Structures are given as C-alpha cells and as structure tokens.
C-alpha cells in the first residue's frame, strides 16, 4: 500500500515537473566557442540571464494568438511569415489537443520575437543559447566531452519522425529540457554570421561585400554538431517557417 502511494506521488510530481515551463536562472560565465567570431573573441563573457525550461508549446502559442490576433495565420502579413506559418494548426481558434504539448513549429523569427516580447522577455542570443546548451545532465560545461558531443551529433543524423511532447527527456545540469533532441531553436541574432557565398578562398574576405568580416576559422575541428547549428542558422531568413524549428524565450535577470 505504501509503495503504491509512493509511486502515485512520484508520478504526480514527475508529470508536473515538465508540464509547465519555468524561468531558469543561468549564472554568468565564459563561453569558449568552437567557431569564434574573431581572433579576439575566443572567450566570450555571458552575463547571467533567465531562460524557459521548456520550448514554447503549441498550447502556449495559441493563447498568444488569441490575445494578439494580428499574428494569427489568417491575418499575418506575408512580410512576417512564409506560407508555411503554423501549418500544424487547422485554424487558430481551434485547439488540437493531440499537439498541445508539442513544441510550436512552423513559426517565423518575427512571430517568435513577438511572442517573447508579450511575455516580458526576448529570444536568447546565440551566445546565451550555446552557453545553456553546452550543459549535459551532470556538467555545466560538457562542450569538451566527446561522449556528449557524439550524443548530439547522433540526434542530428537521425531522420526526424513525429515530434514528441516537450519535457520528456532528461533535463540538463541547469534544469532545462530539450535544448537538444527535439527541435532547432530560433535565437535573437540568427543572422550574425557573414558566410561569403564562395568561401573557397581562405583568409581574405571580399572587402567590397562585407564590412569587417574575417575568415571562418575553427579552433577544434570535431564539433560538427555546433557547425551544423551555425550553418542551419545562417541559412535561415527571418520569415521562414520550418517543420522542426521552434523557440523558447530568455529574460533579463531582473524579470520576475
């Protein structure tokens, strides 16, 4: 009997732990990117910030749409989202319980930004996202752990099937779920990489094309997963909607 009660209690708590998103405070630190944006930026200071423990769900996004009708797919300007916007919704006044707890996808950068602003927050910067995402379940910085990197790369090479619900995998060291293994996520400065169309010439940037951009150097060649994320981000345009691209929000430290 006691065992049964304990199990029931455990089940209740494990359900509620991943049901609602909470704001997790990430302490500040130094990010050592595999692909530093410049020679001077091999160690980047990341100030403390808060971030959603879960990706934004279809349920939460629908709530936002009801309060902000101009972002509904019937009303949105083509400027702010391509034709694929919210394909998973039949229409925006109807909630589909089968997709409620899935991460919202087919959402453009403009829509994601607007959602986060409505929550009193913003999209995380790339540095913030990478800082939070380099944590494994046991280490705050597992970026140099080959086993951790391999795990992420395995996910990237697995063809995506049906989306799972948020919060079903193990959280990372900070208590954040699904930074890896569910969907790609928008960041505030997704278009901060200046990849030259023809980058076969190493070193010299085409100075007439770019203001100040340099060569794209890697410090360690074996974090292919990070490289894939950067390549993916730099291929995006702000109005793109993709079947496996979602987002979560970040907040300044002072935000309640």
């Amino acid at each position, binding site marked *: 009997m006691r065992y049964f009660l304990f199990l029931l209690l455990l089940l209740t708590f494990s359900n509620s732990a991943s049901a609602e998103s909470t704001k997790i405070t990430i302490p500040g630190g130094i990010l050592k990117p595999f692909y530093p944006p410049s020679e001077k930026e091999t160690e980047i200071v990341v100030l403390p910030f808060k971030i959603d423990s879960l990706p934004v769900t279809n349920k939460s996004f629908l709530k936002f749409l009801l309060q902000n009708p101009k972002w509904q797919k019937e009303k949105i300007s083509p400027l702010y989202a391509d034709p694929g916007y919210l394909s998973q919704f039949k229409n925006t006044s109807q909630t589909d319980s089968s997709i409620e707890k899935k991460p919202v996808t087919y959402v453009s950068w403009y829509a994601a930004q607007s959602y986060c602003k409505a929550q009193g927050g913003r999209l995380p910067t790339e540095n913030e996202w990478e800082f939070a995402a380099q944590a494994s379940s046991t280490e705050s910085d597992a970026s140099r752990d080959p086993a951790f990197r391999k795990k992420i790369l395995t996910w990237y090479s697995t063809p995506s099937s049906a989306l799972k619900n948020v919060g079903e995998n193990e959280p990372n060291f900070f208590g954040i779920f699904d930074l890896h293994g569910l969907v790609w996520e928008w960041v505030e400065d997704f278009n901060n990489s200046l990849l030259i169309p023809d980058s076969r010439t190493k070193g010299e940037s085409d100075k*007439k094309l770019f203001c100040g951009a340099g060569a794209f150097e890697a410090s360690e060649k074996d974090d292919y997963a990070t490289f894939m994320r950067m390549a993916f981000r730099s291929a995006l345009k702000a109005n793109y909607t993709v079947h496996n691209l979602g987002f979560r929000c970040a907040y300044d430290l002072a935000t309640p």
Partner: protein
Amino acid sequence: MFKKIFLTLMMMSVFSTGFAKPASLYFYDNTLTDQDGKKVTLDVFKGSHVVAAMFYASCNYTCPVLISELKKMEAALKPEALKNVKILLITFDPEKDTPQKLKEVFTKHNLAETRWKLVSPPKEDVRTLASLLGVSFRKTPDGEYNHNTIITILDAEGVPVFTQEGLKEAGKNLSEKLNGFY
C-alpha cells in the same frame, strides 16, 4: 501518401522565396527618427522608388563607399528617374547615431536633403529592419558592426523589386535598373 506530399510542399516553403508576390516593407510601421529629429515611418517616401540600405555613421570601411556609390547612382539617373527616386539609409546604431550625428553625415558627404533621409530605428527593431532588408550583421565587442552590403530598390508601394549585393559597380547597376523604370 497525402501526408508525404503535404510535408514535402511544406519543406519546399523553406527553400522557396514564397508562393505569393513579395510584400511591401511598409507593413512595418513603427516610428523612426530622421536627421532633423523628426518622427517618420518607413513609408516616408511612399509614391517614389526608394533605394534603401543599412549603415552606421562611424563606419569607416564600406559605408563611405556605399554613400559614394549611391551618389554615382544619382549622377547617372535621367531627369524623370531622378524626380522619383529617394534614398533611405537606416542605422544599425541608434544609440550612437543621434539626429545630430546623422546630420553630420549630410554635411560631410554633401547629400541632397530633398532626396536623402538618414533614419534611426527603435533600438529593439534594428535586427527586424535588417532582416526585412536581407541584411546580416554582428556587433563586435568594440562597437563596430560587421555586415554585408545589400541595397534594395522598393517600388512606390514599398515592395522590393531589385537587390544589389555588394558594392562593386553598385551605383551603375542601381541607376540602370531605375532608369529602366522611367
């Protein structure tokens, strides 16, 4: 089977430039501040062709070349075109580029105030505007902006009709395109 086709079509939307005609940028209607401190909106030159680009006043590298190419473009426009072409430059750096700073650019480069406007967006909208114009950029630790150069021609309704990538022969390409409309 239907699901597969549906998914493929949706995937295609990632790579296509959209099934519909591109939209007018004037749908963005937040307030900008010009070089005279006046509040304007992006459609301030609606009715004319607008040559739009991002820049910043303290940029010492490509931005002076951008301005010089745009002046070359002006010089190469035939009279009917010149009457109906305006130039709109939007700064990456609204904090540093105050109206006074923007006005200094006018003086320094001897820009025609009847045809040019330099505007400062709300701080939180810089990347939105850059994204609308297809511009990628990064702010460096020392306050500079690394950015690509994209110059867009908007029609009288604010719909992009031509994109000039890079500064090589930019003035020539833009003036040829604009002269072709008149």
